[in-house]
């Protein structure tokens, strides 16, 4: 497996149609994943860069993930409470929200927010390094860009996404409770209903989703950045594509994961 295929786009002729381009993209992702796994076990870990990325992807994303989740939890409760209270099912509100948050909303919101915030930044940074020859400079100093740039970002994402998912869960429930309270649903009945309806696996399955999303965002963004070419416009294109492709893949993966984890047959 030749890891240089990820960035030495000179070696492969430009893809001529959409099918070829997609296949090339999937191939590059596969190579990058394989090279990252191999590098993780055979090379030295760049601790400092990994911690740096953890702070950037995790800590710095927490407020925005919390904020969007809180509002999402609030709006879901707004609809469900007005429906449930009408038909006398006020004590289902908390549970319905919790299941929705744990399984779907928290993982997806985490994925989207981090893609927007960090996927774009990863692609832009690596893309700029590519076109200003900094990637070449790394290689010339016998440092693998995969070891130094890609693995820290993938690892940091894998560690931080589940934590962000937990934050999203918590914030969503809090946001929902604030609205529920306005509908006259008390805290104890709200919590009681969560305990009744939500299962531990709803939580665990949601966190498993975030791990897959972490892999998607970090690998796609790194790949797009490393494959950037053609000046500032090229970096812009790489950034856009990193965000769009990550989002599409997240939503597609989300469907299949939902089927796999939660569908009862």
């Amino acid at each position: 497996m030749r890891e240089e295929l990820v960035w030495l786009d000179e070696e492969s002729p430009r893809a001529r149609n959409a099918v070829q381009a997609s296949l090339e993209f999937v191939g590059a992702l596969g190579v990058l994943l394989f090279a990252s796994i191999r590098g993780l076990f055979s090379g030295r870990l760049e601790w400092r860069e990994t911690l740096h990325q953890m702070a950037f992807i995790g800590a710095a994303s927490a407020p925005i993930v919390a904020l969007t989740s809180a509002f999402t939890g609030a709006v879901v409760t707004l609809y469900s409470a007005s429906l449930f209270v009408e038909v006398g099912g006020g004590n289902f509100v908390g549970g319905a929200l919790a299941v929705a948050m744990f399984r779907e909303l928290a993982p997806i919101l985490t994925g989207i927010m981090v893609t927007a915030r960090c996927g774009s930044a990863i692609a832009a940074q690596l893309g700029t390094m590519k076109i200003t020859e900094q990637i070449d400079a790394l290689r010339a100093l016998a440092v693998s860009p995969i070891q130094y740039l890609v693995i820290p970002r993938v690892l940091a994402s894998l560690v931080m996404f589940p934590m962000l998912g937990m934050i999203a869960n918590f914030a969503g429930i809090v946001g929902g409770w604030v609205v529920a309270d306005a509908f006259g649903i008390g805290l104890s009945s709200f919590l009681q209903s969560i305990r009744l309806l939500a299962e531990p696996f709803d939580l665990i399955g949601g966190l498993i989703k975030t791990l897959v999303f972490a892999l998607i965002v970090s690998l796609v963004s790194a790949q797009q950045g490393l494959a950037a070419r053609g000046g500032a416009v090229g970096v812009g294109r790489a950034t856009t594509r990193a965000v769009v492709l990550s989002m599409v893949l997240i939503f597609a993966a989300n469907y299949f994961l939902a089927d796999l984890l939660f569908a009862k047959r």
Partner: protein
Amino acid sequence: MKAGVPALETRQLVYAVDGKVILKGIDLRVEYGEVVGIMGASGSGKTTLLKCLCGLLKPTSGEVWVEGVNIAPLSERERMPLRLRLGIVFQDAALFDYLTVYENVAFGVERHRKLSREQVRQIVRERLAWVGLEGVEHLYPSQLSGGMRKRVGLARALAMDPHIVLFDEPTSGLDPVNAYQVDRLIVRLNRELNLTAVVVSHDVVSLMRTCSRIVMIEAGQIIAEGTPETIRQLEHPQVRAFLRMASSETLDDVPWLGYNIGQEAQV
């Protein structure tokens, strides 16, 4: 280093990208301890040749031998160890813009040599002193002038103690004093540490005083080769024009070669 094995050698090196052939069969041989200059007009393929020599670009066809190993068919991973012994100074410095000067110069050393922090600091200070930079360790590349960046790039490559160094226009963009000092540094490294160097430049003066041999390339092909003396005396029209224009102090005693305006005569 084995006897008889050249430090660097290319055989029928061809490099093409996007259907455009940039190097058209280069045969170059660099012995240990030589300083070889590569001279040529802008766009003639000098940078591309250097990048093929250190394995950053993969040749389309032909062979690239580095210290007795043909690196052309090797994968990126297999080429990595080789780069510890071979340094390259980039034309545009290519400094890591998110790291300070100190971190840039220390980058390779910290990763590849088991040295104490104090030893690393010593090496960084010394290499920066070699290129005439002191007291800039804490600055970021964006806070430096172009010439200073270039010299940091030089220090970064030399920090790894490579025994072959490829210099891509080490003196372009430097003032005459600093250019002179950099040329002197290259010659001193060659004499005192037996450094093998390939110096790419279109600065004829600088090449003449540093190199033991000069190779002239044009449009991806070697068109002349020899010691500075033989190159100076060569009757080759392109070489002559190149040298005369480089040393000309007036603008009308040189026959017109390019940029056709009106009907000026072609040589």
